[in-house]
């Protein structure tokens, strides 16, 4: 409701420009905004998931259960559930109402990325290290894992002419990233050979395949509308690809062709990109750079570089754009801090003094006919009160204009809101530094607050079997996805 009072010039700006803050709790590795945009989930190196409140920049909740670095996070559509995937080979679905673990699913390989179905929080897709991706139904206590194909779809002619070598190659492909389309009807998967597969969720069949890049696909992100996709590949090129309307029931996958719209790269420095994301509308693409401190922002209209966000003196990993504000978050690879960029608004001095107006140039003041007439005070008061004859409506709440229905539903009364917990900071025994007074800090002993580690892992029967084999081995190679 503040928009009516905010300077329209500020509102027109849609790209953040200055480093405005930083958040810290342990060493963050992955971040994700909630759909409403009031919370930021951050996965830490030690496996803890921390929920930050973006309005207060404070910690709203801590979720403990993973024992190794958190790889990816995914929010349910109503922001109540959070799925985390960790290098301890597990995915956990959390209920933010009480912070409990609803489901824990163990895999036989470390997950790269796991994403919740946009409409069903008990269904998710996960891409695994050197394994085929899986669609996991967790409606029941025992998760049902469906393996998804990674091999590209071949036409009958191609199949007939296929050499043994090619067939073997196809079989060897694994998916490195999977993502749902906003309707949840399709899954977009990228493979380690640079193929892009569109898989139908219901039939789990690959409907369409295209080879976008000769190298590994590192990350795929879709806009909220689902009509654009950004693909980061280890060939140092970020590609944006417009998608057809996949919700159209008559879509013809046979004759569909996906064309790359823009290729973003740095030809001079040959930078490779750690992480990419779209802005809220898809108008901008942001990327953090490998071995570099900057965040690049391109606009998609002309495909030009519009801004380089600077500030921190360290390499940045995951970068995320706020769901509806010009606000970018990125994680420092070395320190694990979360850096925030947004627009710094100057104080308008005319707002402080109601008698003042900010004008572009000198304005000649035209005195009104009766402006300085002297009238009895009572007369003025009386007339003033008589003028107040209009009807006022202090009750009717006008609907918010210019806001997507999904967004409006999240803001509606009765929509889920995470309860406010008061004793977060006190229970924060894992942070290495604690405040013991104004401006005084000391390091905490490392052993406190680790009791949860002894808890028994909740999982299905077949999960337990694998627990013995993977419990000790640290998953290797999962962190190195950007190099090659």
């Amino acid at each position, binding site marked *: 409701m503040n928009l009516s009072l905010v300077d329209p010039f500020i509102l027109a700006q849609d790209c953040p420009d200055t480093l405005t803050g930083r958040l810290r709790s342990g060493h963050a590795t992955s971040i994700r905004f909630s759909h409403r945009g009031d919370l930021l989930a951050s996965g830490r190196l030690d496996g803890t998931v921390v929920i930050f409140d973006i*309005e207060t920049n404070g910690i709203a909740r801590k979720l403990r259960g993973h024992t190794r670095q958190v790889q990816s996070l995914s929010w349910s559509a109503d922001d109540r559930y959070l799925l985390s995937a960790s290098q301890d080979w597990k995915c956990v679905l959390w209920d933010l109402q009480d912070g409990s673990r609803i489901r824990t699913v163990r895999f036989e390989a470390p997950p790269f990325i796991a994403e919740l179905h946009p409409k069903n929080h008990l269904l998710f897709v996960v891409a695994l290290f050197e394994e085929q991706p899986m669609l996991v139904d967790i409606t029941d206590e025992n998760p049902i894992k469906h393996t998804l194909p990674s091999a590209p779809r071949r036409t009958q002619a191609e199949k007939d002419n296929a050499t043994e070598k090619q067939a073997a190659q196809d079989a060897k492909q694994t998916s490195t990233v999977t993502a749902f389309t906003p309707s949840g009807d399709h899954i977009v998967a990228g493979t380690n050979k640079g193929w892009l597969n569109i898989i139908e969720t219901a039939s789990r069949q690959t409907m369409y395949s295209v080879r976008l890049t000769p190298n590994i696909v590192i990350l795929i992100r879709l806009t909220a509308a689902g009509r654009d996709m950004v693909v980061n590949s280890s060939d140092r090129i970020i590609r944006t690809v417009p998608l057809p309307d996949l919700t159209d029931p008559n879509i013809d996958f046979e004759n569909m062709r996906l064309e790359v719209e823009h290729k973003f790269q740095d030809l001079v420095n040959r930078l490779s990109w750690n992480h990419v994301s779209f802005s809220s509308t898809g108008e901008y693409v942001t990327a953090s750079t490998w071995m570099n401190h900057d965040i690049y922002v391109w606009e998609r209209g002309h495909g030009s570089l519009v801004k380089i966000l600077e500030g921190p003196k360290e390499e940045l990993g995951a970068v995320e754009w706020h769901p509806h504000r010009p606000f970018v978050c990125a994680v420092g690879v070395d320190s694990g801090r979360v850096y925030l960029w947004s627009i710094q608004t100057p104080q308008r001095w005319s707002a402080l003094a109601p008698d003042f107006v900010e004008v572009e140039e000198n304005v000649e003041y035209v005195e*009104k006919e009766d402006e300085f007439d002297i009238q009895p005070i009572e007369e003025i008061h009386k007339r003033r009160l008589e003028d107040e004859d209009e009807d006022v409506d202090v009750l009717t709440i006008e609907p918010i204009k210019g806001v997507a229905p999904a967004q409006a539903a999240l803001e509606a009364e009765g929509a889920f809101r995470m309860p406010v917990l008061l004793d977060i900071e006190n229970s924060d025994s894992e942070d290495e530094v604690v405040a013991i007074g104004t401006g005084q800090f000391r390091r905490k002993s490392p052993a406190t607050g680790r009791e949860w580690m002894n808890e028994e892992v909740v999982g299905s029967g077949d999960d337990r079997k694998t627990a013995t084999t993977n419990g000790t081995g640290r998953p290797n190679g999962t962190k190195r996805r950007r190099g090659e």
Partner: protein
Amino acid sequence: MQGDDMDMPDTPPSRNGASPTSSPEPIQRRRIPPSPPRNLPERPKELHYRQKLILRGHRGGVSCVKFSPNGRWIASCSADATIKIWDALTGNHEHTLEGHLAGINTISWSPDSRILASGSDDKTIRLWHVSTGKPHPTPFLGHHNTIFSLAISPHGNILVSGSYDEAVFLWDIRSAHPMRSLPAHSDPVGGVDFIRDGTLIVSCSSDGLIRIWDTATGQCLRTIVHEDNPAVTSVRFSPNGKFICAWTLDGAIRLWEYGVGRCVKTYQGHVNKKYSLSGAFGTYSAMSSPPEVRREEDDAMDTEVEGLENVTPIARQSSPSTHKYAFIASGSEDGAIVLWDVSSKEILQRAEGHDGVVLAVDTHPTEPWIVSGGIDRTVRVWRLESSPPGGSEKGKEDIVEKHDVDMVDGIKMEE
């Protein structure tokens, strides 16, 4: 609500914009039909709130009373440095919250009705767990002087406080740390409030200014001042967030359309020269009849036995076709509670009962109930009746007096 009013002039009015003769043509503001269609029953010209409960137990003047957002409780705070929680339906005393070292000026409920915040003369703000009556261990330290007013954001994560030290502080409720201090005023800050979506904060001061702040950036977006510059002691956003209601020491309550910085209504008829009075918006309709109210009370009685988690809003809207009118309720220094119709500025009722200044008035979120607190150390609950009381004898009969536990046990009698 975002994005509207963009067509309104962005600039504040020029120097003499408020003088009646030079004011611009009234902007066409009647986008929504403000008056009900003709076939609806006529708007009642008066309301009959009757005193139902007198809650005794405070040993000092009652400075603030608030219904909880779920409608179950009344919280009252007093100069005796205690807060008392009462059952809104029966008036039974539930808890006495003790811990402040000096008189308490203001209280505010969290949106989930689980936590109560209080601001005191001892310069601290404290949070209380309502279900247990226990204080939260960390007080909010930072203000250099008496805390006059506070409000909790609709999301329950931010607390705003206004103090005699002329500053407005924004606090992270979870960590009890100040997030931001607003260089607000040049005189003590008397009132603060959050808009219904939490994006704006309003503050007022005895320097006569009302300032509107952006919660996210901490910047002042608008300043409202009346020509006569009377000290503003209390402010409240309207339920729809389009107007600000301000209590001033010139014996008036003004309704401001803050988007254009224009006073649209002035309510008079109460006495306010010295004390910081406060009040609330309420609704009434032509169709409220006592049997209906009675039945809803029974419903409330049923839900009462269940745990806090299961409490549903006590009342459902009686009929969707009922047109709701708005009133403003305020205390007065002559011991009355005054109710005005928002649009016509007519006084709907003067409810007499308190002995001395009525400092605080609040309206129930769903029921036609009003709670008031005054310098006479009592908290009184008023309920709407369909007709004026027949005889004064009968009127007196059904007033129930409730005392807190201390009083009943006779351990600490009122001096």
